[in-house]
Structure formats: structure tokens, C-alpha cells
């Protein structure tokens, strides 16, 4: 009887399925947030197909492709980090998360150079150069900055979360039998990747 009492005290109730369900519900609100923007994009692209075409030609496809490869690979390393931890390999898991963070940083650095090149050409929301152009092009670049900007913000949040997970693994707060936090951060990171999978062809690949 006293044994039973002991386990009852030491057993911390956890509901990993519930935690993941909560994360998925949050991800759906994110999908609707970006979905609304994709909707605006779709309507205006339908309205100004030629202007979107001309404006998109100015984006650097090489940088876009490079960032796609970087994000896809970072999704892989996050997935590998979870498997490594499940298998009890703490070091490999931490290494994989660290590599993910490096990829995320590379993505943001590319984004920085991409945006500053556009800025130096005088193309940014509300710039004189841009406002002299036809409406369709103003809308294209407006959507480009808002959507890739919000996506970039998500990359930063993801980096913050993954860094925190790295700390928790180091402190053994996340371990091979308690890793739902890492899984949920991974889900968030995959969503960031998922959104980019659609942003990439819609902005960089209109030829």
C-alpha cells in the first residue's frame, strides 16, 4: 500500500498526445493566418497576371532556390534530432539541432542580402521608385515584403524555440522518454518549411 502511495506521489501526469494536439491546433491558426495572405495574393495575381510576371522577374531565383534547399535540409536535421533523442543519443540530437540553427541563420543572412539589394534598387514599400510603377507591381512587392517578412519572423521565433530546446536537452529536461517539447518545436519548424514550399514557386518561379 505504501509502495502504491509512493508511485502516486512521484508520478507526474503527462499527456503527450494532448500536447501535440494543442500544437497542431496552433499550427492551424498559423495556416489560416498565412492562408489569408495567400488568398490576397491569389486574387491580385488573377487580376494583374502580367504585372506579377514582370515584377517577379526581378527576384533572384538563385537565392530563392538556395534558401529552399537550406530550409528543406534544416527540416531534415530537426527530424533527425528527434529520432536521435528517441534512440538515446543525446549528443547527436544536440548536434542536429545546432546544425538546424546554423541553417536557419544562413537562411536569414541570405534574406538580409536579398532585401538590402532590393532596398538599394529603391524597391521597398512606399518608395518613390515603386510607387511610380503600375498597381500590380506595387501589390506584388507589397505582398512579397509582408509574406516573406512574416515568414522570416517565424524563422526567428523557430530559432529561439530550438535554442531553448537545445538548452533543455543539455539540462536533461528533455530526454529519450520525455521529448514532446522537442517534437512540438520540430512541428513548428516544419510548418515554417511548409509555408516556404508555397512562397518559393509563387514569388520566385513566375517566369
Amino acid at each position, binding site marked *: 500500500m505504501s509502495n502504491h502511495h509512493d508511485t502516486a506521489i512521484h508520478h507526474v501526469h503527462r499527456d503527450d498526445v494532448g500536447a501535440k494536439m494543442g500544437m497542431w491546433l496552433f499550427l492551424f491558426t498559423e495556416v489560416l493566418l498565412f492562408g489569408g495572405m495567400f488568398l490576397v495574393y*491569389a486574387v491580385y495575381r488573377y487580376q494583374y497576371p502580367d504585372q506579377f510576371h514582370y515584377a517577379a522577374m526581378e527576384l533572384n531565383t538563385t537565392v530563392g532556390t538556395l534558401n529552399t534547399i537550406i530550409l528543406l535540409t534544416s527540416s531534415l536535421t530537426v527530424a533527425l534530432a528527434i529520432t536521435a533523442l528517441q534512440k538515446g543519443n543525446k549528443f547527436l540530437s544536440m548536434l542536429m539541432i545546432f546544425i538546424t540553427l546554423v541553417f536557419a541563420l544562413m537562411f536569414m543572412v541570405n534574406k538580409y542580402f536579398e532585401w538590402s539589394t532590393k532596398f538599394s534598387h529603391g524597391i521597398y514599400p512606399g518608395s518613390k521608385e515603386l510607387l511610380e510603377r503600375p498597381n500590380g507591381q506595387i501589390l506584388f512587392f507589397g505582398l512579397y515584403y509582408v509574406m516573406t517578412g512574416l515568414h522570416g519572423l517565424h524563422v526567428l521565433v523557430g530559432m529561439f524555440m530550438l535554442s531553448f530546446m537545445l538548452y533543455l536537452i543539455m539540462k536533461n529536461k528533455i530526454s529519450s*522518454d520525455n521529448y514532446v517539447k522537442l517534437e512540438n518545436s520540430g512541428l513548428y519548424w516544419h510548418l515554417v518549411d511548409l509555408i516556404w514550399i508555397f512562397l518559393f514557386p509563387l514569388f520566385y518561379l*513566375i517566369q
Partner: protein
Amino acid sequence: MQSKENHNHQTGFGIYIVVWLALLALTSITVTIAGISLGKYTLFIALLIAAIKSALVINIFMHIKFEEKIFKVFLALSGFTLLVIFILTFVDFIYR
């Protein structure tokens, strides 16, 4: 006390690497196709490839394939909601 811990399906390193290679292959296909002029079909093909890539990410990387049914129902419901919003908006926009 019943708790729902460690019901997780463990995915091997191998399948993740295979999916990653598939995603890279699809990326190079979509970039190559964008260079060829296919007129009206360009957008359709680009979106189709993006859809295949997301299916891979959602099913394998995000583990939906191995989750309980309720997760799939959630996902289908949110996808359906988005679809309805798109259709209604376009019907309104085109027939205005």
C-alpha cells in the same frame, strides 16, 4: 492513473533521408520546369509539385502518417476550411 506517454512511433534515420532527397529532387524539377515556358500550365505544375512536397513534409517529417486518426481529421478539416474560403472568395470576385 492512466497516462498517454511514449505511444510514439519511432521513425528511422533512413526514411527521413529518403524523403529529404525526394524533396530536393522535386525542388530541382520545379525550378527546371519554371524555366520552360508551358503557358497556363506553369502555375498548375508549380502548385502540384508544392502540394506533393507538403504531403511528404506533413506525412513523414510532421509524423501525421503515424498519428492517431483525430490528427488527420483536424488536418483535413483545416485544409477544407481554407479551400472553402478560397472558392467562396473567387466566386465572389469573378461573378461580381
